């Protein structure tokens, strides 16, 4: 297997940081006609050049994947080994079995400020460690990354009894906290061939499915077909996260995604007020 050039993604960061172009949101694909009807869009997105860079890397990734073995240049792959370990046991992200599975570091990039009102954020999380294994018809994945602050909480769920029939209501404990989170994104149509969807939440032609886990709100299945279109499906999936000694370890149980499919990773740092596109992201990788 060709050597993986971590630098290929790291090199993106200065480029991304340097983008201050004035793309207006109206430029980006907005597939839902109701959105167009509604909005005066006045933000500027500093994503013009970033988009080009991301697209070119995506193309490079696709090209690399289509090249015969031994081809040089960028090869961004993550391997999932077959295993007999029970999926249930691997849902414990601290299970010793995870340490026996091959790991690789995925470089993370910090999104530039998305909105004029965003304060710039330091790039504190430069990479995440990914381990993947196939077992029992499932794809299990463990993401681990260093994060100096543990931003998690238990948030009350609304009781089944309607509020008007209760004397006490659940209170909002906080108004300004955000939580650590991670996600893995796949094309919704798993047979995309060499083409990867737009890294910015897919596009009309190639929608994406996102397996999102949040340290306060748990696992949520989402889908999207372009920036600003991410929707929670209301479905969940098995996932567990543990924060210990400055490291998050999160295990996700996903369906058996076939080899060759593109996938991308993201990490949110609650203490940096990360949410939405304000996050750390990887470029597209290929599952092997």
């Amino acid at each position, binding site marked *: 297997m060709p050597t993986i050039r971590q630098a290929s993604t790291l090199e993106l960061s200065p480029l991304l940081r340097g983008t201050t172009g004035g793309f207006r949101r109206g430029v980006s694909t907005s597939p839902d006609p109701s959105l167009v009807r509604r*909005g*005066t*869009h006045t933000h500027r997105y500093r994503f013009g050049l970033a988009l080009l860079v991301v697209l070119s890397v995506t193309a490079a990734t696709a090209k690399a994947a289509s090249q015969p073995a031994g081809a040089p240049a960028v090869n961004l792959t993550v391997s999932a080994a077959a295993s007999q370990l029970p999926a249930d046991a691997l849902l414990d992200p601290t299970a010793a079995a995870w340490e026996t599975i091959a790991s690789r570091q995925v470089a993370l990039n910090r999104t530039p400020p998305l909105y004029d*009102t965003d304060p710039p954020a330091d790039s504190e999380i430069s990479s995440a460690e990914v381990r993947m294994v196939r077992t029992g018809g499932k794809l299990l994945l463990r993401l681990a990354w260093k994060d100096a602050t543990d931003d998690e909480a238990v948030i009350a769920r609304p009781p089944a009894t309607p509020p*008007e029939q209760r004397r006490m209501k659940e209170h909002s404990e906080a*108004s300004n906290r955000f939580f650590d989170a991670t996600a893995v994104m796949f094309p919704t149509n798993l047979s995309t061939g060499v083409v990867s969807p737009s890294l910015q939440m897919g596009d009309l032609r190639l929608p994406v499915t996102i397996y999102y886990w949040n340290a306060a709100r748990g696992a949520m299945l989402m889908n999207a077909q372009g920036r*600003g279109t991410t929707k929670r499906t209301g479905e969940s999936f098995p996932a567990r996260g543990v924060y210990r000694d400055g490291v998050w370890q999160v295990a996700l149980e996903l369906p058996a995604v076939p080899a060759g499919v593109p996938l991308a990773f993201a990490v949110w740092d609650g203490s940096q007020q990360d949410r939405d*596109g304000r996050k750390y992201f990887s470029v597209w990788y290929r599952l092997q």
Partner: protein
Amino acid sequence: MSRHQYAMVMDLNKCLGCQTCTMACKKLWTDRDGTEYMYWNNVETRPGMGYPRQWDAIGGGWKDGNLQPSPIPSIDDYGRPFEYDYEQRLFEGKGKPVMPTPDPISGPNWDEDVGGMNGDDNFYFYLPRICNHCTNPACLAACPRQAIYKREEDGIVVLDQERCQGYRYCVAACPYKKIYFNEIMDKSEKCIFCYPRLEKGQVNACAAQCPGRLRFVGLLDDPESPVHKIVLVHKVALPLFPEKGTQPNVFYVPPFNPPKRGNYGKSILEDPRLPLEYLIYLFGPEVKDVIQRLEAELVRAQAGGRSEILQLLIGRDAETRYRIRPDLVQINPINKA
């Protein structure tokens, strides 16, 4: 630009600070999980900290066409809700006074009636606040989800709970801090100008319950409406912090208390009970003209003449104060088609 625009005028000379509007709103809209700390309508003492604390100084709004940054207020800036331990004290015989938990350290109108000093004299007045349903809403522009929209039919700014993802860019962007985050539901919420009531021909709950009868409601573009007359014809009401650039549709008749010494020969501006600088801070330099206009009307009325605007501001009955037009705005013909 919406086809019509609902607006509200509040005459600050008539506000008692009784919070009946606050309670009317609370009982109707924010008596749900996660909404305890929210007051879509609040009344705060001015000068004062406001609700949330220092909202007028922390940012948001527009400058030179750009959204301005702002922190998101903490729950203690709003005031953490507390409960009283009635059960322990009254029914379990613990023998101590009934106490609130958690210990209150802040709250809406926490500095009630403290006010400020004008020379040796204390002064304060009350400022009732709802969402301003701005013509150029910063919250709407800040939302990456397009969850906030301005109703085409009546200009009311609403937040689509289905589209909202709880990101809170709107909370930061609103210079009046009139959008609140419901952590239980993971959604933001705001005043809806009681549009379900308006659609049935009923005035907003805060206005309907106001014992001071200080609120006037109608379409700004309806020449027969009291708000049109007060704001555009007589020009005696102004928006709060016009320099924030959002073009509010809630207007205030500034307080024009009589001169301090009760000297009828003196003008309000010669010996003001409320420092003019503070009113300029809130309503912009135009407030001076408004006070002079109102004083001239007052002089005319005191001389036995008739002042149309003062008669209107008395607002004797609901027909005078409100002109609700469900016929114009109930259903958007665009949606119907």
